[in-house]
């Protein structure tokens, strides 16, 4: 025992003691820091994410699998006009806004618009249509089973959303980006 104490009194002994003390301090500090990161809610409280093996952890990717079956595309009725034709017809009616009443304007839109869209336009004054003519080709993009049509007009771009209703494309949404 005396030998051990004497050895601890040497500079190597003090070094050993210091090392043990520092390891202890750092260990406690790390534990404390670890607690801080998990226990102090800064904003909305979010439950910790479980990264432990879940019952279905062997599942891997349980998202959509398109490898074995073809994705059923939108089914357009035979003889029904294509999306770009519907978009062009709708735009011609939408832009024709001077010298018409609201009723006349909506009647012209009706053949190429969904009932939902017409309902949203029920109180619209056609005088507030912000453009007069199409100024370039219509660009179409398929998004899932709906179609987006970008139509350049004087003053900006109109973005139409077309959906298939009973096998026919109809305009269901109008977005406007002034240039």
């Amino acid at each position, binding site marked *: 025992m005396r030998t051990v104490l004497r050895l601890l009194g040497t500079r190597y002994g003090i070094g050993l003691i210091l090392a043990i003390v520092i390891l202890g301090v750092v260990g406690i500090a790390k534990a404390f*820091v670890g607690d801080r990161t998990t226990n102090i809610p800064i*904003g909305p409280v979010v439950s910790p994410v479980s990264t432990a*093996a879940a*019952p279905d952890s062997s*599942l891997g990717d349980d*998202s*959509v*699998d398109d490898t074995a079956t073809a994705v059923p595309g939108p089914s357009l009725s035979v003889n029904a006009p294509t999306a770009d034709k519907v978009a062009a017809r709708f735009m011609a009616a939408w832009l024709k806004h001077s010298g018409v009443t609201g009723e006349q304007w909506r009647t012209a839109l009706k053949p190429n618009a969904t009932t939902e869209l017409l309902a949203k336009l029920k109180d619209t004054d056609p005088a507030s249509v912000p453009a007069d003519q199409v100024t370039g080709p219509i660009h179409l993009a398929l998004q*899932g089973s709906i179609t987006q049509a970008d139509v350049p007009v004087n003053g900006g771009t109109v973005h139409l959303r077309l959906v298939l209703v009973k096998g026919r494309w109809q305009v269901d949404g109008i977005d*406007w980006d002034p240039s």
Partner: protein
Amino acid sequence: MSPISRVRPGLLIAIAATLVLVCCGGGVVAFFLNASDDVSDQAGGCGSGAAINVDAKFPNVGSLGPDQMRNAAIIISVGQQLKVPPRGWVIAIATALQESRLRNLPNLGQNNDHDSVGLFQQRPSQGWGTIAQIMDPVYSSRKFYEKMLQVENWETRALTDVAQAVQRSAFPDAYAKHELFASLIVNTLAGGAARAVGNLTNLRCAAAGEIAASGWTVPAKGPIVSGFRTASRPTHQGVDIGVPKGTPVHAAAAGTVIRMRCNAIAPNGSDWGCDRDGSPQVLGCGWYVDILHPGAYVTRYCHMVSRPLVNVGDQVAPGQQIGWSGSTGHSSGPHLHFETHINGGETKDTAVDPIRFMQDMGAPLGAAP
């Protein structure tokens, strides 16, 4: 420490430095990185009851300048005075972003819609007030709110539908795209108020099942039983929310249903169908729905127990029920597999961590059922 450091200061420093570098340097760095991530997500909380001072100096958001930020602050201030809950502030600012980019526009003649003026492009000829009145942002904001409060169910409908009911524009869907930016403005000016419950005037953070002022909500209340791209499931492109079969599944925000179908393929490649539970041997998402949100975000909801309640092309409101959870497709038991995508995508290249994503939207996942 002081007696020890008096004995051997040099030795202490050397040992301490060595130990810190050798044993926990990585940990210290990791801690600070994680901490900064957390704070950037949630700094500012969920608003407070404090009235906004419109004469304060505000940080600019995005490309907006001081005048535009001040106009946004006035819109919030008028909303506070009228006791409009924070969802209304987001709707009003999104509307003004579309109509004027938050600029108090005078009559621009040929370049303006008809006789519209001001932040909300209100029309003297349609009874909104005189030009002088409408050019006062306090007046025009109050007129907007007064009409908005008369819109039926304005707190729970899609932002663009509420804005259109007030504005009666020729472009009913144009307001939707400003919802996130308007939320960011409200968060910046009003201490995170777009993360608060949307329809309460006493601001507090939205809990699971409540719709935040941003218009986002959790799709189902339940614990996360499997995370996004974990070590054991590196190809898991979403999170699994543990809920019993038949739990209502809600649209996380307003948007357009762009896909709805059964996706379940038997091990031999034939169609397994979704009129029965799947299994780990079956491939696919089961009954699922993809919703396209403003900002080209897509949310995906998989393994529903029966044909979803919505069809392709449907417009859904925030929190609208779209079906019931189940275990169809590639699934070992009832849960909701939920994905969040950017850039309008649906693949592994566009998938982002739903935990992080929903937290940013003010609707954190993972609350207990």
